[in-house]
């Protein structure tokens, strides 16, 4: 009865989790492997552009009916 006051709605959590897990399902990659991919990409980038690897953002995006893997890496100005 008092749950309304103290608990945030669990379905919002669920929707978030489902969106994320479905994007991985559709891309046929597990979230854990995505983390691995990210780490390995960072290592490669770091090798060619030292100090740039940290800002790497890797994600899936739905572009129409295609799932696209986005790797976003802002280039730093050389100091």
């Amino acid at each position, binding site marked *: 009865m008092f749950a309304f006051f103290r608990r945030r709605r*669990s379905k919002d*959590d*669920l929707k978030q*989790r489902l969106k*994320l897990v479905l994007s991985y*399902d559709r891309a*046929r990659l*597990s*979230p854990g*492997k995505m983390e691995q991919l990210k780490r390995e990409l960072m290592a490669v980038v770091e090798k060619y552009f030292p100090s740039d690897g940290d800002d790497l953002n890797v994600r899936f995006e739905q572009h129409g009916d295609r799932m696209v893997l986005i790797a976003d890496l802002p280039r730093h100005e050389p100091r």
Partner: protein
Amino acid sequence: MREPGPRVGTPGPATSGAGAPRLGRPEEGGHLVNAKAIVVTSGKGGVGKTTVTANVGAALAKLGERVCVIDTDVGLRNLDVVMGLEGRVVFDLIDVFEGRCKLRQALIRDKRVETLSLLAASQTKDKSALSEARMQDTVRALLHDEGFDRVIVDSPAGIEAGFRTAASAVEGALVVVNPEVSSVRDADRIIGLLEAREIHEVRLIINRLRPAMVKRGDMLEVDDVLEILGVKLIGIVPEDERVLVSTNVGSPTALDDGGSKATAGSAFRDVARRLRGEDVAYPDLDTSRGVFAGLRRLFGGR
């Protein structure tokens, strides 16, 4: 495979007499499951196999057992999301079968209960997915090399190859049944198949029981189901909204419903204790008595 005959002359622990419908207080005892590897199965889909696996697994782990739960529903993995571990899946069961990773690398340790681990199903089919030999090797390695006390295998629905693979490495079974016609019929079929595979420690979990409907005589009561199926009971789980809410957030209700008695979470905890040989009484699930229920009735609730 040989089809067994009907289980005549093997009534459940409780025999129902005439009179008022009972919500189920069968005789205690006879629950202990010695099997270290147990399949959770039902025949019919949607009766709560995955929920039972996650909750009984979590409850057993909470009691100090080292538990590994395995999702064998290849192509339709779900135990990971129910347990809230989907973000940490790197390798899965098929990676293990195919030798693409070590068994240990595929184990995902639950952060809430340290002694609980998940081995996820793969989302893509692969021909090795149905290998009974690989399943047996994997379960053996979990028990002997990785030091788990208990392995709980979440079976896919159906009686096809997926079920046979799931059942190929176990000595015990939890059959999940809802008190309704198709679920009971399918459970009977599954129990026959388990016996044909010489899995003798078969226990029944009656899931999603609605005490108010039983009381009205509109739902099979526990004794009815036991009489029809003729296997030992190990749990009566009431229909409970908390189950859905807890799966929404990916945390088994057995871990976080606060210890109230007439809840699904409590029923799952009781199953875990009975599995370990404890005599746990079946609580009264009828919440239609008492002050609050009286108030609810006043305001037109059931």
